[in-house]
């Protein structure tokens, strides 16, 4: 059963050292998010550029595990990708699990549907941990990468997972890692 994933969450996991393992997770995104990825892949921001290219390669790979669905009607504007995810969830019962990077985006999706679990992209890393594909140390290191890459947004994503699951990474990473 696929996890519905937005643009920034895909870029976040693609920019970690566990991307090769993440590719084993069945994911689905929207054509609107794919368009955002294509825009990032052409842009000058290295982080967005490299992450988006890796995701687009996987979408283009016929043996890959990322499916793209078409959003109707097509949302426009700055938050079009996130809006398309919220719309998919509201229109279809196919999605039980959503992963999004932005906390406000997660809040919007939760309000659109009661039947769906909405997580930060750390959930995708947790799938690997829970199925013994990666070790706790690798999971923690990967969370640390997300913290370094994504500032306050990354902190919210990682901290909520650590507190909720709960999981203790304090022996693996230094608390200074919180700060850039």
């Amino acid at each position: 059963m696929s996890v519905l994933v937005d643009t920034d969450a895909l870029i976040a996991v693609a920019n970690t050292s566990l991307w090769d393992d993440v590719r084993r997770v069945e994911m689905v995104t929207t054509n609107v998010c794919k368009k955002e990825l294509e825009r990032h892949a052409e842009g000058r921001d290295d982080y967005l550029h490299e992450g988006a290219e890796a995701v687009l390669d996987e979408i283009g790979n016929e043996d890959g595990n990322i499916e793209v669905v078409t959003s109707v009607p097509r949302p426009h504007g700055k938050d079009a990708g996130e809006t398309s995810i919220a719309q998919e969830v509201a229109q279809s019962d196919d999605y039980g699990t959503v992963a999004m990077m932005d906390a406000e985006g997660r809040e919007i999706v939760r309000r659109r549907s009661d039947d769906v679990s909405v997580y930060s992209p750390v959930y995708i890393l947790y799938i690997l941990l829970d199925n013994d594909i990666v070790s706790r140390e690798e999971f923690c290191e990967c969370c640390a990468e997300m913290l370094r890459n994504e500032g306050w947004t990354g902190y919210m994503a990682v901290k909520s997972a650590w507190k909720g699951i709960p999981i203790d990474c304090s022996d693996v990473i230094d608390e200074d890692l919180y700060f850039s």
Partner: protein
Amino acid sequence: MSYEDEIKFRVGAEKEAAKILDELRVGGVNISQLAREGFEEKLREALSDDDRIRIYEMYDHGEIDEEVAHVFLGDDLDRMKEDIAEFEDVEEEDTSKHLAG
């Protein structure tokens, strides 16, 4: 902290401007409320990502009250609670269903 507590700061033309706005409006304006909301907004705007993280860590360690953390972090503090609650149920889930066969 109650609304009886005061923060004092020096003003020049701002005081005159506030007085004029008060006179322009029928029933006047609540300058205290305006200042409080404006101050809160500016406090949030002044925070860097590192500041936000430090404040959440202080709150998490019980070093500052929730009310104070909320002044700084606003809706994000509530969103954090929802995100944590979501992860609390994760261990009951069969996550292997998300792996490609």
